[in-house]
């Protein structure tokens, strides 16, 4: 599926507008919304890395626990071993990757629904271990007073990362770099092999592709970035506990990803941004807190009934319409959606 990577004039303007919006947005919203913005940006990394994992056709339910592994890892490296926080974050992400590597061996014996539930079980075991063993994981209360990101003081510039707006910029940079890496991985030979395994695993094995190794690779890369997201999360909230990474959170990640759509890299981003705005901004401002879950459920059902290929299908249709307006009736090869 080679896509055009060159950016036209319209695309460039779009990117500029997006950049301005991303930089300006923390100054346009209230303090509590700034906090939300930090979490939303972290969640963008969670869903995009999740999509990479699903490219091979297997849907894991351990992704949020991998995020937790990064959060716990980073918190422990910083608090118990005295690592500097930036280093601890990377070490936490690597921890998540290593755990994913180990888990791959039992998990990728399974396929489909069995993998889905098998990965859930593996993740839940890890989570229950955090919950059960007070030393070093802190038990149900988790780890508290995790050191924050060190402030930068260059004399003339002083950046304090306890301020959500500043932490937002830090997260934004980390997330954008991660998204770029994930995008490059998908467009590389490795990413194409992921797609091949998804659609034709027997055929790709017959030409010498080791499907297990590639599934493991996708799982490990996705877990690394989920772990990084978790580390960003831990040093922002300064506390982690097992309940933050339970199946409820995983269900939300699944919802964001599927409602957004998975055939394009930006699909899950649309999902997480749109649903977070709907839930936290629009539904909250209506002031009907008690029926909020009901309305959210209704929106989910309507979204999946009327946009079965996700929000991204709107973008794809709009783009095709724009292209066809120019007169060149391109073959509609872009509209092939992943099931």
């Amino acid at each position, binding site marked *: 599926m080679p896509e055009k990577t060159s950016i036209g004039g319209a695309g460039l303007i779009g990117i500029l507008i997006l950049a301005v919006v991303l930089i300006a947005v923390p100054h346009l919203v209230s303090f509590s919304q700034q906090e939300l913005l930090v979490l939303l940006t972290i969640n963008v990394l969670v869903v995009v890395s999740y999509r990479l994992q699903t490219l091979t056709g297997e849907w894991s339910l351990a992704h949020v626990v991998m995020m937790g592994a990064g959060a716990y890892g980073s918190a422990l490296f910083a608090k118990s071993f005295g690592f500097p926080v930036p280093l601890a974050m990377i070490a936490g992400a690597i921890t998540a990757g290593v755990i994913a590597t180990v888990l791959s061996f039992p998990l990728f*014996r399974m396929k489909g629904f*069995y993998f889905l539930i098998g990965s859930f079980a593996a993740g839940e*075991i890890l989570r229950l271990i955090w919950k*059960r063993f007070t030393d070093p994981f802190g038990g149900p209360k988790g780890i508290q007073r995790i050191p924050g990101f060190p402030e930068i003081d260059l004399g003339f510039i002083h950046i304090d990362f306890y301020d959500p707006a500043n932490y937002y910029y830090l997260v934004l940079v980390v997330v954008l770099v991660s998204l770029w890496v994930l995008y490059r991985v998908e467009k590389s030979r490795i990413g194409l092999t992921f797609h091949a395994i998804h659609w034709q695993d027997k055929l790709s094995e017959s030409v010498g592709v080791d499907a297990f190794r590639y599934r493991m690779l996708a799982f490990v890369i996705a877990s690394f970035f989920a772990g990084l997201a978790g580390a960003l999360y831990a040093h922002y909230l300064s506390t982690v506990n097992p309940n933050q990474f339970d199946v409820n959170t995983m*269900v939300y990640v699944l919802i964001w990803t599927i409602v957004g759509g998975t055939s394009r890299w930006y699909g899950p981003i649309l999902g997480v941004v749109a649903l977070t705005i709907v839930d936290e901004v629009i539904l909250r401002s209506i002031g009907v807190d008690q029926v909020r879950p009901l309305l959210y*459920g209704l929106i*989910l059902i309507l979204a999946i009934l009327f946009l079965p290929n996700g929000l991204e299908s709107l973008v794809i249709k709009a783009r095709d319409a724009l292209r066809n307006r120019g007169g060149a009736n391109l073959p509609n090869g872009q509209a092939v959606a992943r099931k």
Partner: protein
Amino acid sequence: MPDFLLQTVFNASYAASYMALIAVGLVLIFGVMGVINFAHGELYMAGAYAIVFFYVWSGLPFFVAVALGLVFVGCLGILMELTLFRPLRTNPLGGLIASIGFLLILQTLAVLGFGLRNQNVPPVSQGRITVGGAFLTYERLYVIIATIGLLTALYFFLRKSKFGWALRACAQDREAAALQGISINQTARYAMFIGAALAGVAGAMTAPLVAPSPYMGHSVIVTAFIIIIVGGIGSLEGAVVAAVLYAFVHTFVTTFYDGVIANIVGLLLMLAVLVVKPQGLFGVRERA
């Protein structure tokens, strides 16, 4: 010590019974419709609240309330099939998301109608059977008897009746069944009614023992998934065997260690089964 063991066996039999009802319903829905019903725990919750409404508030006899609960939750199942799963029949992940949406709606309705707090359901019977030092209350015994009765009835329904044949045909191969003149829509409606009603009965029968709350479905659905995986998805017999196995292991480990360790052991058991037999104990190879 033997009394203590016997008591644990009683407790495990009770847990195995209602979990088997829930898991068999889930397997039936997955088998016929190919959809993972995430809202199954909330159907169980709806059954428990049916008891709160019909038995506690309206004062009907307990078993009449259970029967009404069965019909009510079964109808909820049909509603799900008509509004969600039928339009999404070719989209299993969509069905999963839609069932999560339905779960949120049911939970909110329970909160709005009955409040957040746990409901107190007065005991149905004070009686108990005593064997040595161990005892089994009648309430728990009713659950065990109801499970055995319903599952036996389901077994004969699936083996002997025409609809049972149709259901099993759909579970094996939907297109081929349709070519034989079996109505997929009608069969799916029956499967949803039966699957949901079984969860509803489980909720209704256990309501006096668990004090219903709007979020009670949550822990049940996780256990139910473990059970249907260990048994092999699509295998009703497997679900029953796995429910018994899981309930015994879980109850014994809880008794001798603690609940969290029991959960870990249960999950490890499931992973072990999957590593040795990736299709579950009674599963056949997965359909593409």
